[in-house]
């Protein structure tokens, strides 16, 4: 699978859970790996690339960490958008 396609799959999984269920990093990795057949290390690595550029972010609420889609305020603070 092409990397961009994998990124889209990861993004879609996180988007689908938005507001419904908090996904931790391993949930995303396991979910995408099962759905695509791509090995977990590759999914993890790809997800990390997305987090490093602000396409996804780590969040923390209710005493647990999760992976989310960043809001504008975060992207602005990180200089990703003006």
């Amino acid at each position, binding site marked *: 699978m092409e990397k961009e396609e994998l990124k889209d799959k990861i993004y879609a999984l996180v988007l689908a859970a938005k507001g419904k*269920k*908090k996904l931790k990093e391993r949930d995303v990795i396991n979910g995408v790996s099962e759905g695509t057949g791509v090995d977990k290390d590759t999914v993890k690595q790809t997800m990390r690339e997305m987090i490093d550029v602000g396409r996804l972010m780590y969040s923390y609420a*209710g*005493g647990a960490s999760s992976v989310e889609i960043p809001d504008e305020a975060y992207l602005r603070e990180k*200089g990703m958008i003006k």
Partner: protein
Amino acid sequence: MGFYGDRKLTAEEAKKLRETDIGPPYFRDFLPPVIKKNYGQWKEHDILSAGLMVHTAESGDKIWTIRVATPRLIATDTVREACDIADKYCDGHLRWTSRNNIEFLVSDEKKVEPIQKELKERGFLMGGIGYRISNVVHTQGWVHCHGAATDASGLVKSMMDELAEYFTTKELPNKLRLAVACCPNMCGAVHCSDIAVVAIHTTVPIIDHDKLGKICEIPTSIASCPTKAISPYPEKKSVKIKDEKCMYCGNCFTVCPAFDPFDTERDGCAIVIGGKVNCLRTNTKFARLVVPFISNRPPRWPKVVAIIKHIIELYAKHARKHERVGEWVDRIGWERFFKLSGITFTYQCIDDFTFMRDTFRNASTFKW
């Protein structure tokens, strides 16, 4: 000034300079030469006074350690002051203990007297080594935590002002380890301390139903309760609490800020005693509850302090040499402890949570 001087980095510079996952620097780069040379080759140590010990290596080399207390919360200028002293007497080497004390590491015997003199003149409190109180492990409290049911730093300061001589001079039957946790999360190792304060709530949390529906997951909120006191409240798209089942642990609040467990009149402190970490003679012990609730009385919490001092004095008087608080109480029995201390025994002292069956007495062999 530091590597980049006074100038704040711009966002652009920060992006270019940052590097992730480098991990901490290598501790060996920070060790004094005499430690590097004798690493893993220490033979013995002697406690010379409450604030001074010397370690001797197989090679005959020695290193002197001078220990001073800090309140854990420390201003940058105080750290710099410690650095000035370490530069003058320790060739720039110092360390911290796991209990918030600074240790100055002196390699030259001639500097041992002068550094102690200077520390004293500057108002540092030396002590904490040996069969004494070695500072207090504690949490953030009102200074910096969102969940604090009391202040930790103020309690520690109030306790240790009364107990300072057990840090600086007076010996006890064994080590005495104190801790303060500012809520039942107990970030401060309270459960295995000789004597500890844990702040508690005593009222059922009030629920902000609008907020709960908006910002929290209902199943997660329900699941957070260890006694299953929380159930759905569909009319309000929220949850409700069965009052008589709630023991005010605050876990619902941790999971969801729509629960408010705070009560300025009824938040306070419990005192637990008899825990220990190490396995010397007896295995690790849990601390157990002796005083269930004392109202918060800042700035000095006089009742908390008075009870703790009273227990320590009893321990000093009655325990055998080498007995920790918990070992002493186990030997004499809890019924004897309550009699000796005069502390009122209440329903709250009897466990009704997960460990209760292990705490009941199954014999008629007790003392009057």
